[in-house]
């Protein structure tokens, strides 16, 4: 700055506001003493400030005091506790971090449990309890009701009694409930192939058979065997105990369905059908009539025979379900981290990644196009409907804003 030229008018104002350093203030003051134009400006600025200073406001009401002071008192008491001085933002951050840590801990615990489930040293759970209290449907047996496992010999006797007594007048009823049981077991084994062989021998030892068996041996994944076994109900406990020894049980469940009523109904219907068939046979042998009548009787006999055979098959299936318990076994191989790297070459993996990426991108773009096509027209209509009032409100808002 120099006194030879007029200074910036903002500097004159800054001088009056006391915003200049001592050196600059001295220079500007010296200039004002010489320059009439700048002195006039300073005078005008002072005049404006004087005008504004005439605008006084009334004193604030005393009513505010009590409320504010009481709040300050309360707050002061709370702030005497150290933790209350932590800023809310930090408290929120701490809370979020705690939540994240808790999440990590939960995930870690879950993973640990999963890994433990794969460990060989894991003790198999007590199986007696599960065997003694099978879960049955409510309509069949209540949970508190004790259901003894059906004995193969007695069950066969009772079932055959029911079937053979069809000539009798009373509907045969089993002395004990007929329960069709299904057991499901998931066992993690070290070697699936040897476990499978052992499973076959267990089934043979307990006079059962394998209804279905599927083996999965993918190249880079865990091998597994799914088998649906049938073992006599009386052998269920011992067979299941032996299967459990193949490895470690990670899942086990048992369900039972009481089929006594279903069986009794079937036997009764079978009995009635047989009696009707016998009467038709008698009519056919003892009476004579027109050919059409004979044919009608024979048709009825044929229909009844079909029904009887169907019901007999159903009865046998039902009895078989009671006598032979189903055990669905899932043998899976214990996980061992592979030491070898992926068999695919790096270039193949890279190529596959590119192809996958390309597919993802095209899929995403196509999805966006589909989304626009699907919802675009509706959105356009909504935009038109809502846009006009929104535009009017916006104009009004701008108008009011300019006034404030």
């Amino acid at each position: 700055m120099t006194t030879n030229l007029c200074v910036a008018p903002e500097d004159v104002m800054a001088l009056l506001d006391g915003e200049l350093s001592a050196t600059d203030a001295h220079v500007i003051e010296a200039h004002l003493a010489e320059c009439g134009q700048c002195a006039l400006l300073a005078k005008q600025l002072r005049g404006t400030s004087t005008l504004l200073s005439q605008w006084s406001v009334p004193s604030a009401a005393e009513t505010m005091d009590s409320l504010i002071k009481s709040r300050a008192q309360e707050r002061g008491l709370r702030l005497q506790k150290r933790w209350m001085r932590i800023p809310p933002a930090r408290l929120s951050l701490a809370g979020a971090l705690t939540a994240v840590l808790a999440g990590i801990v939960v995930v870690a615990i879950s993973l640990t449990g999963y890994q433990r489930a794969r460990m060989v040293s894991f003790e198999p759970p007590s199986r007696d309890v599960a065997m003694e209290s099978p879960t049955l449907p409510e309509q069949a047996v209540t949970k508190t009701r004790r259901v003894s496992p059906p004995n193969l010999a007695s069950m066969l006797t009772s079932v055959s009694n029911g079937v053979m007594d069809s000539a009798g007048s009373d509907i045969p009823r089993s002395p004990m409930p007929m329960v069709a049981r299904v057991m499901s077991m998931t066992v993690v084994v070290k070697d699936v192939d040897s476990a499978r062989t052992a499973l076959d021998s267990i089934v043979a030892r307990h006079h059962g058979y394998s209804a279905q068996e599927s083996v999965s041996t993918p190249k880079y994944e865990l091998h597994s065997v799914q088998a649906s076994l049938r073992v006599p109900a009386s052998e269920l406990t011992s067979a299941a105990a032996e299967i459990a020894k193949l490895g470690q049980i990670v899942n086990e469940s048992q369900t039972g369905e009481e089929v006594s009523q279903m069986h009794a109904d079937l036997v009764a219907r079978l009995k009635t059908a047989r009696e009707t068939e016998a009467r038709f046979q008698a009519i056919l042998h003892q009476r004579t009539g027109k050919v059409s009548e004979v044919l009608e009787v024979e048709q009825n006999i044929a229909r009844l025979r079909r029904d009887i055979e169907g019901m007999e098959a159903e009865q046998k299936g039902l009895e078989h379900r009671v006598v032979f318990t189903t055990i669905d076994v899932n043998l899976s191989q214990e996980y061992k981290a592979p030491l070898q790297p992926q068999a695919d070459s790096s270039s193949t993996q890279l190529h596959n990644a590119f192809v996958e990426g390309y597919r993802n991108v095209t899929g995403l773009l196509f999805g966006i196009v589909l989304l626009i096509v699907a919802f675009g027209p509706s959105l356009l209509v909504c935009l038109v409907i809502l846009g006009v009032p929104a535009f009017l409100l916006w104009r009004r808002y701008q108008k009011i804003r300019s006034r404030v």
Partner: protein
Amino acid sequence: MHEMADSDERLMNAFSQGNAEAFNELFRRYQQPIFGFFKRRIAEATQAEELAQDTFLALIRSTANYRPSATFRTYLYAIAFNVLRAYRRKAMFRSMFSSTKEEEPSVRNSLAEEIVLRDALNRLGRVDREILLLREFEQLSYAEISELAQLPLNTVRSRLFRARMALREMLSAPAASREQKDLVESKERI
């Protein structure tokens, strides 16, 4: 009294440690300035009192957030500006859905000088007006205004000069010949 000689910042720190007396002293110092801050911007005295009260309550609530990096005065006026902005937003929202213009009885009851000043100030751009008010009435330094308005220091200086000159021109011109000037609405923080 020893506390009287304490700086605002020390008093605020004492309050953040739980000393309610320190706050009382701050309240005593700033009750009238904060009320004046609102009274000059909102004609209704009752409303100005309520907003001043809200400002102090917000200050009490946000004690834990206070950091002595800025001056207490700037911090307090920043809170006051937030309260004012919230009030204006609500007022604007109400106006959008109300057909009648809100009356300001205290404007009608005000002194002639006050009406003239209000009228002249209302003709200034929003940011220029706030800078001028902060300097003339709240006596904030250029640096404090710059921090509060989030504007460069030189911009504050030039805008303040422009506002003063415009105001002088409006106040010196006859009332009848005062024309609405084309004042560009600024999009800055204030």
